[in-house]
């Protein structure tokens, strides 16, 4: 089907080494950065200078570095879960909605449960995990039992979640002390997450993300369940013959993925905002950006620590170029889109060995 000129050789690469994959990914990102650099030039700002600002803004000061980590936290927590879902070949595009439902559960518990202080935060995390998992399990069951497309159901539920939050903050949960703004009341201080001194890094969520990355690495690499997830993802027919329940595995993968996205939502409302309000300001497209984070990590939960940090830098970079250079924050979306395209474009170099020059032997 794909006709290639005689001077290009394409052979299948049976199992690409980790180093090859890493190198190809880095090159893909560099290409995307060069392309994105053209937009700086479009605004009359030298690309090198702009990247200099971004690096200085993301690493050059305590504030910069901690803000980078702050943006990294939800991407890490969600990304680890998405890696698990993607391994089971479940297309969870619904992390944005699962995050919001986690935020809803945490807000409800913080505002109305009356749970005393040492137990309040754990209850919020548990509730957030459960709500996110619940939002994710529906599509898992629909896919496993009825064969319904997971991309569409998870995507649609994002909007149901967005309107649920709108309904709550305009209706039953509208705060009495917010002067008519569509916010819930502020959480009691017992519901505030402990922070790294003077920063916006909420420690419990960061810890959950790091632990989840390590645990999931162990689970997918070393355990029976991890093996079953892989079989269901790579070869559903083989899974059937091996007596692996596809329903069980898909649901389990989505409990983890949805639940972790829910935890990210808890972190955002309990760590940063301390109330429930405009859903797009809470979710900040973390649920979509985390798809790139997970994709770039190439199915490795530990690698998510690295890739989520990279996208933390990019998000921080968006703030920096907005404040220091007066450029639109939307450049972040250009970055994300370009990186994603170059990554999927580079996939062909991962799967195939491409050589230039005339053929020496016939395959």
């Amino acid at each position, binding site marked *: *089907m*794909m006709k290639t000129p005689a001077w290009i050789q394409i052979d299948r690469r049976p199992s690409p080494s980790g180093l090859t994959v890493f190198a190809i990914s880095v090159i893909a990102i560099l290409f995307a950065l060069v392309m994105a650099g053209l*937009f700086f030039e*479009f*605004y009359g700002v030298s690309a090198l200078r702009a990247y200099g600002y971004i690096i200085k803004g993301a690493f050059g000061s305590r504030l910069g570095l901690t803000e980078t980590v702050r943006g990294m936290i939800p991407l890490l927590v969600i990304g680890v879960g998405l890696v698990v879902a993607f391994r089971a070949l479940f*297309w969870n*595009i619904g992390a944005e909605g699962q995050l919001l439902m986690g935020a809803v559960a945490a807000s409800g518990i913080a505002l109305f449960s009356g749970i005393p202080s040492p137990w309040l935060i754990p209850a919020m995390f548990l509730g957030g995990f459960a709500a996110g998992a619940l939002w994710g399990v529906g599509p898992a069951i*629909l896919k496993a039992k*009825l*064969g*319904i*497309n997971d*991309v*569409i*159901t998870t*995507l*649609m*539920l*994002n*909007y*149901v979640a967005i*309107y*649920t939050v*709108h*309904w709550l903050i*305009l*209706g039953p949960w509208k705060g009495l002390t917010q002067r008519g703004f569509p916010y819930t009341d502020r959480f009691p201080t017992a519901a505030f997450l402990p922070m790294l001194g003077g920063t916006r890094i909420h420690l419990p969520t960061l810890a959950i993300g790091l632990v989840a990355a390590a645990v999931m690495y162990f689970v997918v690499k070393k355990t029976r369940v991890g093996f079953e997830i892989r079989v269901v993802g790579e070869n559903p027919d083989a899974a059937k013959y091996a007596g692996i329940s596809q329903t069980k595995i898909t649901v389990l993968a989505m409990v983890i993925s949805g639940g972790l996205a829910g935890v990210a939502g808890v972190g955002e409302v309990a760590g940063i905002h301390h109330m429930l309000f405009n859903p797009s300001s809470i979710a900040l497209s973390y649920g*979509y950006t985390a*798809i790139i984070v997970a*994709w770039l990590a190439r199915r490795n939960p530990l690698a998510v620590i690295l890739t989520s940090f990279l996208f933390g830098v990019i998000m921080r970079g968006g703030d920096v170029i907005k404040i220091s250079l007066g*450029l*639109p*924050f*939307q*450049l*972040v*979306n*250009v*970055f*994300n*889109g*370009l990186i*994603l*395209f170059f990554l*999927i*474009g580079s*996939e*062909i170099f991962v799967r195939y060995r491409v050589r230039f020059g005339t053929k020496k032997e016939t395959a």
Partner: protein
Amino acid sequence: MSWESWVISTISRTLAYGTPLLLATLGEIYAERSGVLNLGVEGMMIVGALTGFAVASQTGNPWFGVLAAGVVSGLFSLIHAFASVTLRANQVVSGLALTMLGLGLSGVIGRSYEGRPLMHTLDKISIPLLEKIPVLGPAIFQDQNLLVYIGIGLAILLWFVLFKTRIGISIRAVGEDPATADSLGINVARVRYLCVMVGGVLAGIAGAYLSVAYRPSWTDGMTAGMGWIVIALTIFAFWNPISGMFGAYFFAGLFVLSFRLQAWLSPELLKAMPYILAIVVLIVVSRGTLQKRMGAPSALTLPYTRGED
């Protein structure tokens, strides 16, 4: 307000709001019928909206804006076609990337157009005689944009092409069973490229409708999630252009009513309806014979290479 004028203005606004949904949905139906899911609708629409506004304000002719939007978004959609057809990349990821890129590019490039008024917008027209019909006349045939009627005409035309012509058979064959289509001499890649482009052109025109007719202005992110309603609508319409038309007006009606019935019904519930209904439809058609007759094209999201599965 008398109930009569309430009905008239509700229907009239439903047509106005339903038109961009309809145009973009017709395009997505063609892309998906050929086997390519394009989640980049939101991105293609916003690129069209900016192009339409920019060209209309530079040239002073809104129709140039509409045309340019179709061309630019059609070209923009080629990125997705290249990734998913030629590179055989994952269509979900590629489509999401297209949306991110479209939102980003339009936000970056469009900043200088923000807040500017548009001098020449699409004229509203009324259809003589028909506009005299009581209630229906003013509701449907008075003070609408020509694009509203072009949308209806296109729905009928594209339905005819898809189900009554050889071209349509080829498109559906490529989306259902590309290997067989290939063996019958149909160029699978070409059909898919063209269908994705039809999707891009129509999404671009839909975007331009927003920025030169519906709300003549440019604001960052002005498509406000419409592209995702289009994804839902494509399913809701069972991938059929005529159902797509009724579906677009139905969803638009829900949107208009969500403002007008606020006192009685939660507007959030009505706004969430399109997404809930899309899931319900998928559940209903997931069984047996319905799946074959009304379900998604069998090869949707599957890349095709001759001689491979």
